[in-house]
């Protein structure tokens, strides 16, 4: 306990330095929010495994380090960035290095009038009205210490604004790179995506690093899909196996909006991913798919919440995990169907394959249904590879190693087939292929 207090003080004590570096940003209205969040942060405690929501995920290893933002300018090679891009795809590219926008590596297409794609730091400076309206509105930090930390240290991240009726055809690829030379860097990407009425956009949040070092990514993403908007979100986590990654995404869905998210992760040392979506009006549709492929002593924790507050909404959730060695997975999927939310369809599924006797998954579907005319289902499986399928492949001349690769690839690919853009699917297929040698 003592250590935790120390660490909290550490994060608080860095705030002075952070403020100094803001370069006049202190006069901004966002700064009031920062200070409020800091005060909240100081009142909250880091969760322990005694907290129900953190029962299987101990963050003690994270609290052992004094992570801090870096103010040193670092760069990465063009080749490295290129290796993270999707082939043959027109896109807008926004790159952040150690949490800061890199104009040099970013490449923004000529977008429709009114569409804004860029750094949130700029928009804070410009007092962007959309930003002021939505920032900090969905990712509440009253009870969430990591969000409080993020909000207090809000500096940079991606800001995307698609005005009513605009269709942004080319996906927006956001890459967050940590290059730290093991300097225990803390980066806190803070993203806000707003899609107005009847607009459409595809956004990729891509986390990467150029070496296996120890750092801490604390990411918060707020997404607003207004009436009839279509937002496709993909998150790729290709981080250091020594890194810590705590992330939260809050999605606000208005009438007839359609949101989808696909999370593809090869994990970190410790990953906690919270995806929460809320239907604020009727006719919404939401897809949350996820794939985690971990090994060694990695821990991956997916917490999701589908909040059906209004009638006639559909949600589909499918998370799959492949765990090897002594890795551990946690899936906690909560679906709330509130009393008003009649004619809700909510489906949830979590399937896991354990490749070793020592790998472990704790899966917990939580359905809280208060309406009576709804269709809901959930299922969770934890198993080994299918022996019948393995024998079938062998009987066709395909041996154990190649056969396992094929079967794992097939199991994994399942959750990515619903990604609409082929180039992105191909990139993910490549991650899976590298992972399972097939």
């Amino acid at each position: 306990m003592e250590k935790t207090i120390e660490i909290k003080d550490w994060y608080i004590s860095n705030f002075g330095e952070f403020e100094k570096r803001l370069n006049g940003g202190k006069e901004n209205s966002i700064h009031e929010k920062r200070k409020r969040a800091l005060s909240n942060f100081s009142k909250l405690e880091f969760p322990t495994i005694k907290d129900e929501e953190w029962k299987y995920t101990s963050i003690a290893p994270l609290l052992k380090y004094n992570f801090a933002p870096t103010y040193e300018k670092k760069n990465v090679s063009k080749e490295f960035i290129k290796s993270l891009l999707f082939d043959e795809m027109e896109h807008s590219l926004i790159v952040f290095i150690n949490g800061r926008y890199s104009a040099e590596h970013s490449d923004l297409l000529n977008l429709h009038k009114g569409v804004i794609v860029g750094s949130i730091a700029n928009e804070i400076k410009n007092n962007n009205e959309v930003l002021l309206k939505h920032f900090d509105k969905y990712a509440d930090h009253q009870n969430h210490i990591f969000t409080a930390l993020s909000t207090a240290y809000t500096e940079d991240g991606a800001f995307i604004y698609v005005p009513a009726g605009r269709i942004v055809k080319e996906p927006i690829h956001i890459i967050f790179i940590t290059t730290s030379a093991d300097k225990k860097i803390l980066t806190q990407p803070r993203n806000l995506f707003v899609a107005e009425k009847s607009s459409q956009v595809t956004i990729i949040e891509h986390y990467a690093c150029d070496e296996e070092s120890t750092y801490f990514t604390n990411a918060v993403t707020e997404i607003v899909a207004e009436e009839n908007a279509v937002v496709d979100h993909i998150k790729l986590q290709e981080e250091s196996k020594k890194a810590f990654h705590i992330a939260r995404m809050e999605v606000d869905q208005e009438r007839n909006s359609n949101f989808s998210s696909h999370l593809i992760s090869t994990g970190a040392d410790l990953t906690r991913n919270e995806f929460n979506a809320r239907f604020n009006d009727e006719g919404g549709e939401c897809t949350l798919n996820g794939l985690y492929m971990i090994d060694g002593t990695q821990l991956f924790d997916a917490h999701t919440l589908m909040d059906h507050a209004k009638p006639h909404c559909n949600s589909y959730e499918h998370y799959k995990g492949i765990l090897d060695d002594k890795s551990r997975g946690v899936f906690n999927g909560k679906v709330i169907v509130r009393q008003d939310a009649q004619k809700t369809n909510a489906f949830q599924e979590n399937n896991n394959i354990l490749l070793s006797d020592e790998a472990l998954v704790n899966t917990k579907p939580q359905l809280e249904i208060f309406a009576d005319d709804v269709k809901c289902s959930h299922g969770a499986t934890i198993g080994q590879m299918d022996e019948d399928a393995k024998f079938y492949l062998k009987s066709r001349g395909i041996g154990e190693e190649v056969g396992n690769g094929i079967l794992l690839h097939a199991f994994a690919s399942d959750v990515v087939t619903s990604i609409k853009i082929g180039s992105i699917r191909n990139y993910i297929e490549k991650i899976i292929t590298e992972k399972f040698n097939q």
Partner: protein
Amino acid sequence: MLEIKNLHAGIEGNEILKGINLKVNAGEVHAIMGPNGSGKSTLAQVLAGREEYNVIEGEVNYNGKNLLDLAPEDRAREGVFLAFQYPVEIPGVSNTNLLKTALNEIRKYRGEEELDTIEFLSLVKEKMKLVELDQKFLSRSVNEGFSGGEKKRNEIFQMAVLQPKLAILDETDSGLDIDALKIVANGVNKLRSKDNATIVVTHYQRLLNYIVPDFVHVLYNGKIVKSGGKELALKLEDMGYDWVKSNVAETVAG
């Protein structure tokens, strides 16, 4: 090509095959018939190398090699093919992927060049006609959502592509309507040659109207109790398996 001598095998401590003797030469078609539970499928599975079954006694010689020593994938690479009674569904793996990987693994084993995509596709297209499968079928997941007939046709299609020396068809006819049965039989017949052999495991004589066997063996209670020409199958159809059962009883009594 294949010589089975005094084969005893079982699963989980139960002996199912109780001394099988069978010799199959290149160019021959052998039918193995018998009532349910007689050990027909066990024989097919043991020959293919299913790990759950254990061989208690006996030997199986295949082209000069001890078949029982080979891993299942090596048996396939040596030219043994099992058409499954219940083909396995493999979601997410396309028929193309399965076949291309299988074919190239087999070719690698034999020291042959792997086929490139164009060569592979032209081979596959030619073989599809044999079992009257539509091209769209190639991109579908292996057996997933297939009808019974489609699954069996897929087995024969795979056999056509992999061109085995010894094909074992395990109840490939069960549950097929007459049209599907004809397609399957026609496929098998077209693949027959003087260099390969086929073992047709079946419960019903009907298939043998279309795949005419050189030899028919009756398996009962883990042993081959009768062998003969194709007329034996007709007799079985007429008199039913009870005839075999009482016959065996008589022999034992006599």
